[in-house]
């Protein structure tokens, strides 16, 4: 299946969960947050959230700003 992560399309294996994706991308759960299709998926739900074909995933963190 294909999903868009931070604006770029990626080929992902079927049945991949959000927690697995973040682990595979090397993203620290602390200090980051994820939205799937414009809805925040809270941390405790990452394990149970399966990614679907066509999902748009945003993964953010804090950067310098005013």
């Amino acid at each position: 299946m294909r999903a868009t992560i931070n604006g770029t399309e990626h080929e992902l294996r079927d049945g991949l969960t959000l927690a697995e994706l973040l682990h595979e991308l090397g993203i620290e759960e602390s200090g980051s947050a994820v939205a799937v299709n414009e809805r925040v998926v809270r941390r405790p739900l990452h394990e149970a959230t399966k990614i679907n074909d066509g999902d748009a995933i945003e993964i953010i963190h804090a950067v310098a700003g005013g």
Partner: protein
Amino acid sequence: MLRDEPLKVGRYEFQSRLIVGTGKYPSLDVMQRAHEASGAELVTVAIRRIHLDDPSGKTLIDYIDRSRYRILPNTAGCTTAKDAVLTAQLAREALHTDLIKLEVIGDTQTLYPDTTQTIEAARELVRDGFTVLPYITDDPIACKQLEEAGCAAIMPLAAPIGSGLGVCNPYVIRIIKERASVPVIVDAGVGTASDAAVAMELGVDALLMNTGVAAARDPVLMAQAMRRATEAGRMAYLAGRMGKRLYASASSPVTDLIGSPAP
């Protein structure tokens, strides 16, 4: 010593009336030292996508001692209420805070806020339980509408973001402050210490600045100057300035001068 009430924003209390940013510093080390010199207890951060090619390594948050500073995430760069609301919700999840500096930009040259979208986003975020601090133009009506929407403070600009022009419209800032029942925080436009003092002398409750400190030749020294100017302006406001008059009024006695005739 100044005896003053703390700054109260929603359920949060601060002794410091200066809020500083984390952007534009020459280095993170200088930023850390400037934060310390500023005496601030609240620092702003922006929210952006993680670069997937370099997701690990130290992030900005590692340079902010959270036992000392509260984080005020912003929605800078958002141009719609919808994006600002989602950014705020992501910030809350990432940083474990309900504080949000709401910024919905209407134009990239002036960086003036889109008032309609800002008010719409404020309503939505208040409903969702956020402590909302909106950046807004120095417009008394928009400020009132944001207060009525349930914002915990209102943050009119002194001058355009990053311009360092100082308080362009001091009389309107005073009007906004006089009519507000939530804290008024002047956000954007403060360029140097005298600007900070002028703003505080108008009676506003606090200042939020980034470029004024970060883009100084010596940001750490300017942070200290801003801290003192903020305090000095606050003290002068509480002390109540003398009335202005057109002509001179001697400070020394005008009678019993040498060579004058006896009474």
